[in-house]
């Protein structure tokens, strides 16, 4: 009897939590969608400024995600498999961009890579000026998105028992071979999750982008920036653009999640 009651109570509690979570997470999104008259989305898609912002958003966030994966994989691997002094500190440092208010991150990027920033002079000698360029959008997004890739992938790598790596090593596999043929396939879930999360963060990035890269249609105006500026003018249009961004992001993230990249290719 008692366990039965307990189970019932637990079920009710779980149900309650699910319901509250749905209200918290889904209701605002539904409210947004309900506000948009049907057909409005297609009208908006016809607007060249909107299409431009959408294409720029997709290009920039995909580039940022690829950069984050390429630069992040080795770091996640080392953090998961090696011990070194100050490792905790490094791990926390890697999380920092998540904590910083995005506009502060943008400011930090300007102070580092801006024309008069720490690296600005050296970049200038190479003929590179980052602020106000599409490349700056990619940098801002990568900066904001990297922690969202590093954290789950690091955890995913660490969750693969070291036994597997040791066995591979005793069988004569090199570390590189083990990484590509043992570790990556075993942690593909974490890889996909990290990729999806960092791509989502990059797509939605606003504060660091407008601070570091500025806002110019066709060059640095991504969808979130277009939405924000529309919000200053026309609430309905801003909501329509947000829903458009939501739809595109939803499709992209769903595709990523169902891709099962890891298992197939590695």
């Amino acid at each position, binding site marked *: 009897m008692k366990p039965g009651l307990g189970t019932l109570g637990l079920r009710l509690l779980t149900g309650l939590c699910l319901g509250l979570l749905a209200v918290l997470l889904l209701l605002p999104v539904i409210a947004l969608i309900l506000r948009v008259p049907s057909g409005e989305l297609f009208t908006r898609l016809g607007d060249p400024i909107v299409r431009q912002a959408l294409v720029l958003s997709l290009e920039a966030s995909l580039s940022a995600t690829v950069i984050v994966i390429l630069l992040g994989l080795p770091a996640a691997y080392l953090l998961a498999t090696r011990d070194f002094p100050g490792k905790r500190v490094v791990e926390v440092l890697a999380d920092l961009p998540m904590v910083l208010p995005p506009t502060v991150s943008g400011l930090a990027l300007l102070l580092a890579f801006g024309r008069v920033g720490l690296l600005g002079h050296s970049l200038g000698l190479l003929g590179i000026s980052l602020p106000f360029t599409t490349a700056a959008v990619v940098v801002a997004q990568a900066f904001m998105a990297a922690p969202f890739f590093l954290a789950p992938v690091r955890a995913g790598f660490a969750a693969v028992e070291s036994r597997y790596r040791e066995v591979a090593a005793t069988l004569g596999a090199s570390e590189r071979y083990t990484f590509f043929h043992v570790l990556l396939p075993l942690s593909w879930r974490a890889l996909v999750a990290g990729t999806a999360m960092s791509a989502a963060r990059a797509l939605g990035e606003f504060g660091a982008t407008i601070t570091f890269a500025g806002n110019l249609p066709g060059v640095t105006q991504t969808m979130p920036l277009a939405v924000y500026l529309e919000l*200053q003018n026309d609430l309905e249009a801003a909501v329509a653009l947000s829903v458009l961004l939501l739809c595109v992001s939803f499709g992209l993230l769903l595709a990523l999640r169902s891709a099962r990249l890891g298992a197939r290719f590695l």
Partner: protein
Amino acid sequence: MATARFFRARRRALAVVLALGTAPATVAAQHSPATIFAAASLTEAFRAIAAAYHNGHPFERVNFNFAGSQQLVLQLTEGAKGDLLATADPQWMREAQARGLIDGDPVPFVRNLLVVIVPRANRAGLHGLEDLARPGVKVVLGDQAVPVGRYSRELLDGLAARGGLGANYAKQVMANVVSLEDNVKGVVSKVELGEADAGIVYRSDAQGAAAPALGQIEIPDSLNIAALYPIALLKGGDNPDLARSFLAYILSPAGQEILERFGFERLPAGSGAASRPATKP
């Protein structure tokens, strides 16, 4: 409603009791503060006015909500509560009126002229308005969704038409624009940091906290654009009496003097309607 009235009555009774018996500071605690929705460009000046007002009325409390004019109107439309609204242009005040937010008629209380700012180092070597049109100069403006962006465009068009800078002047400057900021402070910070070579902002912004890092290129008064700032009481405020009294203080010589200290200009006598060139041609 009934409960609210009950509480108000009780509060008044309590205030009387306390006023008879204890220090007046306790009475002040019973007043609800007035909330003032003001355009971001008023931040420093209004804080100073509130400090001065507080000296004369130590028991009154004024809270601020500073944001872009358009954002203020949006917040109010979506249910935010306030006592006073001061916008950086008449258009958003008219919008607030149209949405039924305003009690009575708005009054213009100050104006703000435009100025071109450059980084103190001025490595692009900009010294006159004509330099903004030079190819390769990085110019930052407000987006046309925000008042300063609209005024900047008006200014450039006026300079092209009447400033003797060439008919293509506005087009050339617009071609140099590297970013359209979502608010005037964004323009200031990009120039202040030296990332942009020039920007167009309100004079009050050029005299604010960023002043030491900035140089200025003056715009002749005859070609300048004056942003007119209207202020109005909001419907349903918590403390309309305090709001009225604070509004009167802003319009008083003392209030106007503070605004001037922060780079704003007194309204010329008899001025009225929307933005227009500083002196009529």
